C-alpha cells in the first residue's frame, strides 16, 4: 500500500518537475522575444527617422556669371575670386526665379534657399572658370524648411501662423515642383561639413573627425599604460597588501560614473595644467583615464589565460623573467588585450558626460585637423542636435545615431576579427 502511494507521489513530482522545465523554457523564450522587439523598435524608429537626412532638397537656379557684376576677369587671381561679388549674382538669380516678382515676393523666395548658396555659386565658378559671362543652371541647396516640408516631416495642413512657410511660399514650392525645378539628391554636406546653425548644411564630418582624434588619443595613452600596468601586476608585482589594494581599486575605478572623470578633467587638466579647452587632447586624456581600468582588467584576464606551462618552459631553459614574459606571455595575450582595448575604445566613443564637462559641447563649425584644435564628438553632436528646436536637426540626430552605431559595430567586428585571427590554440 505504502509503496503504491510513494510511487504515485514520485510520478506526480516528476510531472511537476518537467512542467517546471517547460515553463522555464517559455519564460526564457518570451524574455528573448521582448528584448528583440525592443531592439527592433529602437532600430526602426532611428532608421525611419534618420534615413531622410541622407537626402537634401535642391532647387534649380539660373545664374548669370556676369563679368561686370562679379567684378572679375578671366585672369583674376584666387584672392580676387574670393572677393568676387557672388552675392550680387545670387540676388539677381533669386529675383528671377519667377517672372515679374514683386519685392515682397522676392523676399519670400529668398527664404526658400539656404543662406549658404552664394558659396555654392562661388565654388562652381572656382571649379569651372570658363563659365564667366555665361548663364548656368545650377542645383542649389534649399532651405531646411522647404526640405522638411517636402520630406513630409513638417505638415502643411496646419494653420499658417504655426508653419514656418506661409501660403505664398507654399504656392511657390508647388510651382517649382510642377516645373521640375526642385529635386532630392544625395546629401553630401552631411558627410563633408561640420556643424552649422542651418540644418540643411550641417554635417557630421567635424564631430566624426573629433571622435576619431579623441579615440586616437585614448588609444595612444591607455594601451601602453594598460599593458604596462597589467603585466607588472600580473607577472612582477609581489603579492602583498599594497598590490591587493591596487587591484581592488582598479575594479572600483571601472565602476566610477564617467561624469566624475569629466570633473577631474575640468579641475585638473583644464584648470591646473591648462590643457586647451574643448579639444580631443583633453577629451582623449579624460576618456583614457576612464577606460584604463576596463582595459587593465581585460589585459589581466588575457594574461592570466596564458597557460603557466609556457612561461615555465621559457624559464626552465634559462630565460630571464622579462624575456619569458615579453617573448611568450605577452604575445599570446595580445589578441585578448587588443579586444579588450577595442571594447574600451567603443565605450569611450559613446561617452558624452565627461566631454560636456571639459567643454567639448561647444558649437564648432570647423572640421578639426589636430588634437589641439577645438572639436565636437559624435555623441555630443547628437546631444546638441537633439536639443535644437529646428525640425531639420531631428533627422540629422537620428542619422548621426546611425553613423555612431555603424562605427561601434565596425569596432566590435574588428575586435572579433582580431581575436579569431591571432588567437593561438595550444
Amino acid at each position: 500500500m505504502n509503496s503504491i502511494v510513494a510511487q504515485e507521489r514520485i510520478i506526480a513530482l516528476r510531472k511537476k518537475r518537467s512542467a517546471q522545465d517547460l515553463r522555464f523554457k517559455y519564460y526564457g523564450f518570451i524574455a528573448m522575444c521582448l528584448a528583440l522587439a525592443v531592439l527592433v523598435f529602437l532600430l526602426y524608429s532611428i532608421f525611419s527617422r534618420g534615413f531622410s537626412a541622407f537626402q537634401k532638397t535642391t532647387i534649380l537656379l539660373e545664374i548669370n556669371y556676369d563679368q561686370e557684376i562679379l567684378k572679375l576677369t578671366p585672369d583674376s587671381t584666387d584672392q580676387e575670386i574670393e572677393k568676387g561679388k557672388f552675392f550680387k549674382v545670387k540676388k539677381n538669380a533669386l529675383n528671377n526665379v519667377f517672372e515679374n516678382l514683386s519685392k515682397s515676393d522676392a523676399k519670400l523666395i529668398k527664404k526658400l534657399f539656404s543662406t549658404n548658396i552664394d558659396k555654392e555659386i562661388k565654388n562652381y565658378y572656382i571649379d569651372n572658370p570658363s563659365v564667366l559671362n555665361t548663364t548656368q543652371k545650377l542645383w542649389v541647396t534649399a532651405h531646411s524648411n522647404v526640405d522638411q516640408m517636402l520630406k513630409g516631416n513638417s505638415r502643411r495642413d496646419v494653420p499658417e501662423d504655426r508653419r514656418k512657410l506661409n501660403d505664398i511660399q507654399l504656392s511657390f514650392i508647388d510651382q517649382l515642383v510642377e516645373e521640375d525645378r526642385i529635386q532630392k539628391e544625395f546629401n553630401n554636406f552631411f558627410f563633408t561639413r561640420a556643424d552649422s546653425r542651418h540644418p540643411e548644411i550641417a554635417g557630421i564630418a567635424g564631430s566624426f573627425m573629433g571622435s576619431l582624434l579623441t579615440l586616437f588619443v585614448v588609444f595612444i595613452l591607455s594601451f601602453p599604460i594598460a599593458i604596462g600596468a597589467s603585466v607588472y601586476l600580473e607577472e612582477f608585482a609581489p603579492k602583498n597588501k599594497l598590490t591587493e589594494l591596487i587591484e581592488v581599486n582598479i575594479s572600483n575605478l571601472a565602476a566610477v560614473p564617467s561624469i566624475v572623470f569629466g570633473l577631474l578633467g575640468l579641475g585638473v587638466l583644464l584648470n591646473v595644467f591648462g590643457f586647451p579647452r574643448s579639444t580631443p587632447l583633453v577629451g582623449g586624456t579624460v576618456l583614457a583615464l576612464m577606460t584604463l581600468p576596463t582595459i587593465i582588467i581585460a589585459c589581466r584576464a588575457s594574461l592570466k589565460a596564458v597557460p603557466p606551462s609556457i612561461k615555465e618552459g621559457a624559464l626552465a631553459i634559462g630565460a630571464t623573467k622579462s624575456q619569458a614574459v615579453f617573448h611568450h606571455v605577452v604575445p599570446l595575450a595580445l589578441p585578448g588585450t587588443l579586444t579588450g582595448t577595442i571594447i574600451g575604445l567603443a565605450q569611450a566613443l559613446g561617452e558624452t558626460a565627461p566631454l560636456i564637462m571639459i567643454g567639448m559641447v561647444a558649437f564648432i563649425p570647423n572640421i578639426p585637423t589636430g588634437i589641439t584644435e577645438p572639436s565636437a564628438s559624435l555623441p555630443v553632436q547628437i546631444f546638441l542636435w537633439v536639443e535644437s528646436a529646428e525640425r531639420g536637426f531631428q533627422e540629422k540626430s537620428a542619422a548621426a545615431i546611425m553613423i555612431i552605431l555603424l562605427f561601434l559595430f565596425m569596432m566590435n567586428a574588428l575586435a572579433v576579427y582580431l581575436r579569431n585571427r591571432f588567437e593561438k590554440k595550444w
Partner: protein
Amino acid sequence: MVENNNTKISAKDVDVFYSEKQALNKISMDIKEKEVTALIGPSGCGKSTFLRCINRMNDLIEICKVTGSIKVDNEEIISSSTDVVSLRSKIGMVFQKPNPFPKSIFDNVAYGPSIHGLADTKSDLENIVITSLKKAGLYNEVKDRLNEPGTSLSGGQQQRLCIARAIAVNPEIILMDEPCSALDPIATAIIEELIDELRLNYTIIIVTHSMQQAARVSQKTCFFHLGELIESGETNKIFTNPDNTKTQDYITGRFG
C-alpha cells in the same frame, strides 16, 4: 656498465616549506654524473618538489621556502647570490605535460640558444637546432616541416621537441618531471629509449609514477614518502632487495 664516482649533485639537509606546511624534511643525497636517477614515491611525497629545487623552479611559487644546501659541481645553488639564469641553462627541464611554445618547431629549439647567444651566425643556429633534434630522435620525423607549429605534433613528438629544446642550450643535467605520464605506451617506449641514449652525455634525474619505468631506465633509485627520503641506492637493489619495509610495500604495490 662503467661505474663512476663523480658526484654531480649533492644535497644536504634540504627542507622545503609551503607556507607553514613542510613538504620536504632533511633530504640528503648524492647524484652521480652521467647516470639516470629515478625519484619514486606516492603522490604528494615531495619528489617533484625536490626536483624543482635543483633548478630553482620553486622560486616561481611565492609561498615556497627552501633551506639547506644543494651543490651542483661543488657550487652552492640554494643562495640568494646564485645566478638562476645560468643555473637553468646548465640544468634543463622537461615537464609532465609537453609544453612547446606556440611557435614553429625550429623556433622552439632555437629559442634557448638565441637568448643565451650560443650561435654567432644563422647557420650556427641551424646546426644547433638540427643536432638537438637529432639527439632527441625527432629530426627524421620533422626535417621537412621545421616551420610548422610545434603544437601540431603528436604528444610524444611534442615531448621529444621539449627534450630537444632543453638539450639545445648544452645543459649538463636534465630534470624530467614525469615526462611520460601524458603519453601512450608506444610514445613512452620511444622516450625511454631516448633517455637511455642521453645518459651517455647527460646526468638525468627523472620523477616517475611508474615503477616499471624506474626499473627500466634508471641506475639509481630514490624512494620518497611523506616528504622524507626513505631509501636510495642501486635500482637493482631497491627493486629486488630493499632495506626498508616501506619501500618493500610500495614497490610490491601494497600502498601508494
